């Protein structure tokens, strides 16, 4: 296990934090929200491409820096600090992983360089109902001529309201609940028969519902093997979970710092509120919980880079702990701020709204408690 960043990773972390605090500040986020951007911020994303962040996981041969998950985790953590909306997680982490793990050479060559340049965004479309339940895929993909015909719907697809390319999990055999029989397809946004409904979400990041009405996909756009999509989907979702945990850790850090600052400046009854013992103890507990979660996130990112065989357990651990921490931290942030934290003009509300969405994506604490027990074997 390695918990200490290499010098290069440390530099990436510093650069990401600088960039985020300068160009993707909470002030920027608020302006975007007020303008009704719904999470679409192409100018900032172009600047991120300049920083090379889309290519952190992309092999050098396809235009990336192949810098690893720990590195990308630092960027996601930094981004979480200001709740910034970007395609990093769905594209640079999820999309790239899916292609690297399951893509043919031709697919990689077509897609990865464009991602590295910031010219193509992806979104993974898995869930079909209100709760994360990836084995429950019911959308059908029926062999049709040289390709497949997709019918069904996908719900609450992150980045789905702007992504250029969808990675869609559909069922070529079996029944909902089976892991076998799932196949992954790459479906461009403008494909006939695909209807995208943009959603205005609680966190102001947006999302989309997708409807597939006999969408035709050529066999060349199958990602990995037919019926064996789960072998790619499951590890890709674990990468998403670990990435989300890193992002939530950043969110929690920033919420804690904001609260910590308030404890040291706000007075009531002639005293700094941070001098009241019950608030001191709660702050100490929040901080301790954050330290515990930080270890899980760091270990999960390290497990990916090291190619360890406990990635699934670590992903569920990190996502569960980060979700639980984000829940606690955002609630305490509002409570400790009191009335001011309830107002839209204060940032506390942005944190709780974003946290509730991140907690839920790719499975909340409950989902991962269940999954962890199964993985451990009881």
């Amino acid at each position, binding site marked *: 296990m390695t918990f200490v960043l290499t010098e290069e990773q440390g530099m990436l972390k510093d650069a990401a934090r600088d960039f985020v605090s300068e160009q993707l500040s909470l002030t920027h986020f608020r302006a975007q929200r007020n303008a009704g951007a719904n999470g679409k911020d192409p100018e900032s994303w172009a600047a991120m491409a300049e920083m090379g962040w889309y290519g952190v996981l992309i092999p050098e041969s396809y235009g990336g820096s192949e810098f690893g998950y720990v590195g990308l985790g630092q960027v996601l953590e930094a981004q979480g600090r200001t709740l910034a909306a970007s395609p990093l997680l769905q594209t640079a982490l999820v999309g790239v992983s899916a292609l690297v793990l399951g893509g043919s050479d031709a697919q990689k060559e077509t897609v990865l360089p464009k991602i590295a340049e910031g010219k193509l965004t992806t979104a993974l479309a898995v869930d079909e109902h209100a709760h994360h339940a990836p084995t429950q895929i019911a959308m059908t993909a029926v062999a049709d001529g040289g390709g497949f015909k997709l019918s069904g719907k996908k719900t*609450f697809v992150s980045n789905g309201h702007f992504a250029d390319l969808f990675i869609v999990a559909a069922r070529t055999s079996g029944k909902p609940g089976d892991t076998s029989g799932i196949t992954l397809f790459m479906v461009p946004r403008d494909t006939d028969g695909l209807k995208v409904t943009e959603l*205005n979400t609680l966190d102001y990041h947006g999302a989309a519902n997708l409807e597939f009405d006999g969408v035709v996909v050529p066999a060349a756009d199958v990602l990995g093997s037919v019926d064996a999509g789960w072998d790619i989907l499951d590890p890709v979702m674990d990468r998403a979970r670990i990435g989300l945990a890193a992002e939530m850790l950043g969110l929690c850090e920033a919420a804690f710092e904001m609260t910590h600052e308030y404890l040291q400046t706000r007075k009531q009854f*002639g005293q700094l509120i941070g001098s009241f013992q019950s608030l001191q103890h709660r702050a100490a507990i929040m901080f301790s919980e954050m330290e515990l979660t930080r270890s899980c996130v760091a270990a999960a990112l390290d497990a990916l880079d090291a190619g360890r065989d406990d990635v699934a357990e670590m992903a569920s651990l990190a996502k569960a702990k980060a979700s639980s921490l984000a829940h606690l931290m955002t609630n305490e942030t509002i409570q400790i701020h009191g009335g001011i934290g309830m*107002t839209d003009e204060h940032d506390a*509300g942005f944190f709780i709204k974003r946290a509730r969405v991140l907690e839920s994506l790719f499975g909340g604490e409950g989902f991962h408690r269940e999954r962890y027990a199964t993985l451990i074997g009881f």
Partner: protein
Amino acid sequence: MADGMDPTLDQFRAETREWLEENCPPSMRTPQTEDEVVWGGRGEKFKNPESKLWLERMASKGWTAPTWPKAYGGGGLSKEENQILQQELKRIKARVALNSFGLWMLGPVLLEYANEEQKQKFLPDIVQGKIRWCQGYSEPGAGSDLAGLQTKCEDKGDHWLVNGQKVWTSYADQADWIFCLVRTDTSTKHEGISFLLFDMQSEGVEARPIKLISGSSPFCETFFNDVKVPKDQLVGRLNGGWEIAKRLLQYERSNISASGFGGERTGIPPIYEIAKKYVGTDAEGHLLDNDLRMRLSDLVMSEKAFKLTVARMAEQSKAGEEVGHTASIIKYAAAKFNQYKTEMTVETLGYQGLGWEGEGFSEMELHAPKAMLRAKANSIEGGTSEVNLNVIAKRVLGLKEHKG
């Protein structure tokens, strides 16, 4: 005395039932919709004309304030009679004719502390819903530490001059008058506060709505810039406002938490029914998500425990048992429970509980996250949970402060 034991009460019940049958309009017996709630006042628009009729008829009997003296427009009912009236209203599912801070908070303290002239002037208008009141308590620098308030009130001989700022003034932008805590002596803390009433249309008053994280704006920041107030609008003793303020807070706390923050919207099914729909069930009708099922079971049990406790305390109080400072316990528990419930509702709805507006979400789904966000204020407004725990520790449990 048990019902049916007193012929006078039986007669009252019969007459009341008859009167309600005749006078409660049909639409006033349907579930209240949010936009038809009547708050009264100069600006009341009565979206449903039968709401106006219902208010007028109830007010004519004094039944918007059933136990207030008839001399001030109230119903003059005894406790027992009022109980019967409330039972009969509930029987026909009648809507509340008038929601009003005047009725719930100001009126009771005016009855106790105001002089005769003030009672005559203000109480009947409250009963009839003619004047809508708001509450000027919190200030930016004085939240939990209410007595730290700074809004200055100077004696200018023939009038008071008020300067300062209030915050969290509920519906100040829609209210006609304000009851307000002001500082009339800066050399002392609690003993320098007075209780003042004035018209929100007075020159120098400005109410700016505060947008909340839930998107609604039920509160204002309210600014007073050289507001002149007639001398006879100070209630009780000069510098005696803190006692009135505390009494009023008791009314506020019991009012806020009586029904667990009135979180019950009509027409929303129990959370486990929502869960069945959004999570699915197995052959035995159990939720497929067993983790969620266990947590919902805990929630439903907690709800039951909370409601039983409200009922127990009400009954013990009615029976004259000393139930101590139960308001703080109920308020603390109500906030905790309502936050628990609204969070669990969002979680139960899954992705459908994460919408803000527009397509893809039903009205009920969009309400859930806003209710969750709104509920965060339950442990802040009307005394924070921390203050309530302090009160329980000190007044109920008798624990002392640090010495010197």
